[in-house]
C-alpha cells in the first residue's frame, strides 16, 4: 500500500519535519525544535497541527437522519443546536468502541471527525447501519488543521473575522480566499483553539498566514504529550474494541436521556455497567519519581498482585514530570491509591490521580 501524504507535506519538509508513518500517512512527529519546545509553545502561544489524515465525514439528511443516528450514537442529537458539537463513540452491540469521534450538527446533516486509522471501517459500519439511506461523503478534498493555544483566537480572528465569537464545542461556516470553510472551536490539547476544514488548494496559504502571524507547526509527538497531560484518550491506546465508554471513564459523554431511552447500539451493556459497575477502569497515574511508565507497563498493588496496565505514558513537559494513564482493577482505582509500576524489571511507586494532569484554559461556554 502506498503511503499517503497530506497537502501540507512540502511545508512540513520546509520546516525540517521528522516524519513517521501514522495510519498509512507520512506525518510529522516533530520539527526542528523538538517535542518539549513544541509542547510548551502550544501551551504558551499557538501551535498548528496538521490533522488532515483524520476523516471528515459528511452525512446528509433531515430529522429522520438524526433519529437514525441516535440509534448509533449515545448523544441527544435531536436537541443539539445546529452548529454545535458532541464527543461520542461508534460502538458495537457490546458497547466495544470502534472509534471515538466528534459529531457536529449542521444545516442539512452532520459532520463527523473520525480517527485516521478507523475512518474507512467507520464509513462502512455507518453505511451498513444506516442502511444506505443517506448520502455519505468521506471528504478528501478538504484538509483539516487544528490551531491550539492561548493566542489562537487572536491570530485566527485577524485572518478570518468572526471566529472569536464561537463558543467551545460549536462551529460555523466562514470564508477564506473565496472558499467556504467550516471552523469549530475545539481541539485535543487542553487548550483553547480551533479546527479548520478548508479546501486542499487553500490550506497551505492559510497555514503560511498563520505562521506569519506567529503560530508554529507542531508535530504528532507534542500532540501526544499535550493530550496526555489534558487526560484525553487516544484511540488504540486508552480505547479499543474490547473497552466500553464506562470502563474508559467517559460516562460524561453519554446523554442521561439517551441512557433512559435504552435504544442505541450497546445501550444494554452500558446500562448494565452503570448499574453493576465495571471490573477495570481508566485512571490517571502519577509516578513518584522521574520514572516513565510507557504503554503496556504492568501495574501492581501493595501486595504485589498484578492489578492493571498502562495504556499511555510519557514525560509531561508542562507538568515537568512523568504522566500516565491506564486501566486498573476498580478496587484500586481510588485517587491517591499507592501502586507500583514495573519498568525494566524493577518496581517503582506511583499513585492513582485525578485527570487532567494539566488544567485546561478553555474559554467561553465551557461547562
Amino acid at each position, binding site marked *: 500500500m502506498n503511503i499517503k501524504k497530506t497537502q501540507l507535506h512540502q511545508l512540513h519538509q520546509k520546516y525540517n519535519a521528522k516524519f513517521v508513518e501514522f495510519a498509512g500517512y507520512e506525518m510529522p512527529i516533530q520539527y526542528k525544535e*523538538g*517535542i*518539549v519546545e513544541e509542547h510548551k509553545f502550544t501551551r504558551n502561544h499557538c501551535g498548528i497541527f496538521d490533522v488532515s489524515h483524520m476523516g471528515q465525514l459528511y452525512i446528509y439528511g433531515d430529522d429522520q437522519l438524526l433519529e437514525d443516528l441516535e440509534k448509533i450514537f449515545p448523544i441527544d442529537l435531536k436537541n443539539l443546536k445546529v452548529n454545535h458539537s458532541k464527543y461520542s463513540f461508534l460502538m458495537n452491540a457490546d458497547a466495544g468502541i470502534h472509534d471515538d469521534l466528534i459529531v457536529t450538527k449542521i444545516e442539512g446533516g452532520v459532520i463527523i471527525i473520525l480517527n485516521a486509522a478507523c475512518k474507512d471501517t467507520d464509513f462502512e459500519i455507518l453505511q451498513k447501519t444506516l442502511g444506505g439511506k443517506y448520502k455519505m461523503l468521506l471528504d478528501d478534498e478538504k484538509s483539516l488543521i487544528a490551531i491550539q493555544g492561548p493566542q489562537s483566537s487572536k491570530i485566527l480572528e485577524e485572518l478570518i473575522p468572526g471566529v472569536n465569537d464561537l463558543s467551545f464545542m460549536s462551529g460555523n461556516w466562514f470564508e477564506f480566499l473565496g472558499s467556504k470553510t467550516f471552523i469549530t472551536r475545539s481541539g485535543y490539547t487542553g487548550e483553547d483553539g480551533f479546527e479548520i476544514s478548508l479546501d486542499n488548494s487553500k490550506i497551505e496559504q492559510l497555514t503560511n498566514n498563520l505562521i506569519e502571524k506567529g503560530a508554529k507547526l507542531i508535530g504528532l*509527538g507534542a500532540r501526544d*504529550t499535550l493530550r496526555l497531560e489534558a487526560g484525553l484518550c487516544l484511540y488504540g491506546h486508552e480505547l479499543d474494541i474490547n473497552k466500553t465508554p464506562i470502563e474508559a471513564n467517559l460516562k460524561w459523554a453519554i446523554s442521561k436521556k439517551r441512557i433512559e431511552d435504552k435504544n442505541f447500539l450497546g445501550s444494554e451493556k452500558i446500562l448494565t455497567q452503570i448499574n453493576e459497575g465495571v471490573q477495570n477502569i481508566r485512571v490517571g497515574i502519577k509516578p513518584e519519581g*522521574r520514572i*516513565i511508565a510507557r504503554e503496556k507497563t504492568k501495574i501492581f498493588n501493595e501486595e504485589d498482585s498484578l492489578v492493571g496496565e498502562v495504556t499511555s505514558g*510519557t*514525560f509531561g513537559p508542562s507538568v515537568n514530570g*512523568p504522566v500516565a494513564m491506564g486501566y486498573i482493577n476498580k478496587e484500586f482505582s481510588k485517587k491517591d491509591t499507592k501502586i507500583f509500576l514495573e519498568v525494566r524489571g524493577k518496581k517503582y511507586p506511583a499513585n492513582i490521580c485525578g485527570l487532567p494532569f494539566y488544567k485546561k484554559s478553555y474559554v467561553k461556554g465551557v461547562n
Partner: protein
Amino acid sequence: MSDVKYSKEHEWIKLEGDVATIGITQHATEMLGDIVFVELPEVGSSVEKDGNAGVVESTKAASDVYTPVSGEVVENNQAIVDDPGKVNSDPENDAWFFKLKIKDKAELDSLMNKDEYDKFAKESSN
C-alpha cells in the same frame, strides 16, 4: 581533543590515567530528541564492554546506554539524573554519564577517533 574516542553505539570516552569518563555524543542526543529521564549504573558496580550501563529516555522512547569498555563504576553524574535536559545542552562535557576504573586499556584500541566517528555518524544517519 585527540584523547577522546567514540563507539558505534554513540558513546564517547575520555581517558585520564586509568579512569575513563563516558557519555553519549551530540549526534546521539540529536537522534534521541529531548531527554527526559536518565538511569545510571551504581557506583561500585562492574560493567562489561558493550554491555548495558544505563538508560536514557526521550519523550518518544527509551534507549539503552552501553559502555565501550569494561571496568568498575567509580562515579556517576547525579546532575543529569536530576535534570536530564542537561544531556541535550552539553552532552560531551558537563553531562557525562559515569566514570570507570578501566580493566584493560587494550579495549580502547577498537574504538574510533573523532574523524572516524563523525564519518560513521554521518553515514549511519543517512
